[in-house]
């Protein structure tokens, strides 16, 4: 089943790789390069879509300029509390969980580095 995925990632190479693997698996990918842009895109999509959730999955890097992934996630969850968010983080998972109290049940974490296929599996598994 084709999923609509919003990506927040500032590394150009990583972004291209996410696009390639996800599109190969038949998903629709929307790319943003920082936290700010990510929230903006999400908000826009909320207005346009007829579906209650504009994106099936939001894939977020934690370390981004302008706004961090955690902040962007918090804003998105305030609008849609059950939005599925996946964090791609190079930090220790534990410290991320303890750091922000915003992380709720609908948030998952995948620790860098990970293989692209495992990312795809994770995204597709939940559905």
């Amino acid at each position, binding site marked *: 089943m084709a999923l609509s995925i919003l990506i927040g990632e*500032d*590394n150009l*190479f990583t972004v291209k790789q996410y696009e*390639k693997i996800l599109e*190969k698996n038949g998903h629709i990918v929307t790319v943003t390069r920082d936290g700010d842009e990510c929230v903006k895109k999400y908000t826009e999509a909320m207005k346009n879509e007829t579906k209650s959730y504009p994106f099936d999955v939001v894939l977020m890097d934690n*370390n981004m300029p302008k706004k961090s992934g955690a902040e962007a996630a918090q804003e998105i969850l305030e609008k849609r509390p059950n939005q599925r968010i996946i964090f791609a983080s190079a930090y220790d998972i534990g410290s991320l969980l303890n750091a922000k109290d915003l992380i709720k049940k609908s948030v998952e974490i995948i620790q860098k580095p*990970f*293989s*692209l296929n495992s990312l795809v599996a994770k995204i597709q598994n939940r559905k």
Partner: protein
Amino acid sequence: MLVGKTKTGLKIGGSVGIIILLLGVAVLFGLHQMSKVSLEINEISEEYVPLTEILSEIRLHHSKQAQSFEKILRLSDTGIISEVQKSKEEFWMRSGNIESEISRGKTVAQRGIEMISFENNDSQYMVFFQKFVEIERIHNEYENTADSIFLILGSGKIKDVSALLEKTDQFEVELQSEIDSGLKIISTLTDYSTSQIAANERDSIIGQIIIVTMVGAIAATLGFFINQINKDLKKEVDSKTVELKNANEKLKELDRMKDEFIGIASHELKSPIQPIFGFAELAKSGDIDQNEAWDGVTQLAKKLQDLANAVLDVSKIESGRLKLQFEKIPINDSILKEVNELKMNLNQNVKIQKNLDENIEIEIDKIRFGQVIRNLLNNSIKFTSEGTISITTNVFQDENKVLVRISDSGSGIPEDLLPKIFEKFVTKGKDSQSGTGLGLFLCKGIVTAHGGEINAENNLEKGATFEFSLPISQKSKLQKLVKVFTN
């Protein structure tokens, strides 16, 4: 502090010495007084008491002798020969006693003359000796006269003995007088001795009280000095404790900073690894163009290499182990080398402008200097999408200084970052592809190690300017001192 301690140490040692000395003096003084006292007592027991006894005995014996004499005189009339004889025996026996006492008296007087004493007692015992000699004379005359009377009475002749009796009476008076005066002298001497004993004992006590009081005072002073040392030591301990505490705080802070750096550095190292894996995966599955994949991997590997080197350099700078190889290099040549390399990859819209002063020889580490120029130029290029980057040098020979200025017309440095611009991992560009986040930190470290200074500021119009100074020659010791103090 050491001098103070030595002085106090001397004071304490001196005080203890004086205390011991005074106690010794007290003991000696006591002994001295005691010996005086014992000599007095000795004199009393060896001399005064025996002399008194002797004189009393002489008096006693003489009175008995006189009694016998009276008896003889009375009995002569009655004519009882046996009684008279008995009394005569008695008379002469007493005579013997008296003579022996006189002899004893002389001996005692002689002993007194030879006795060691504090006062010159020779004279007084000479007097006594003479006195006994005199008593002996009187006694002999008395007895001679008495004997004459006995003869007359025994012969039966009627003769007038009243004249002779008068003589004996007189001799008795003289005798008593001598004895009396002798006893009086002894009494006076004894009183004097007793008072001397009292005086000596009193002096002894007073002297010892004085000395003990002095000892007490000195001991108190000693206590004071020791307390002083204690206080000084405590002060020193307290100040050292504060020093240690401060040093500890500093160490804790450094430790925290190190941990933070390690945290960030390891994160930065991990981030190129993700796309490298990605490229490998996609290339293997054929979902990406080979060239694109390998170019990407190469680029990422280079970034990792740069970061690894930068981290190593950071560690060297922080622990002061950055080794510089100084050579005399023409400064402009070095600068131009870097500029020309960078020009090749330059955006069309960006120009590099050079305003270089005299191409003097400057004592630098060629590679590290190049690293600084490259870093600063790269920064300028990164943040300038279009415009001019200018590099300027100024030589100040008399001040042993060269100023290098790199200015751009780009986006400038965010105001909140400007104060921290030379710290680690502060710069976060919009494109995290290039840059290690350590470039400016390394520039500062290298410039400082050369004995120079580096500054950054935003231009009034557009962009930012980085300016650093370097000494032309490293030989100046003053330079090195300045470096130490300004760090």
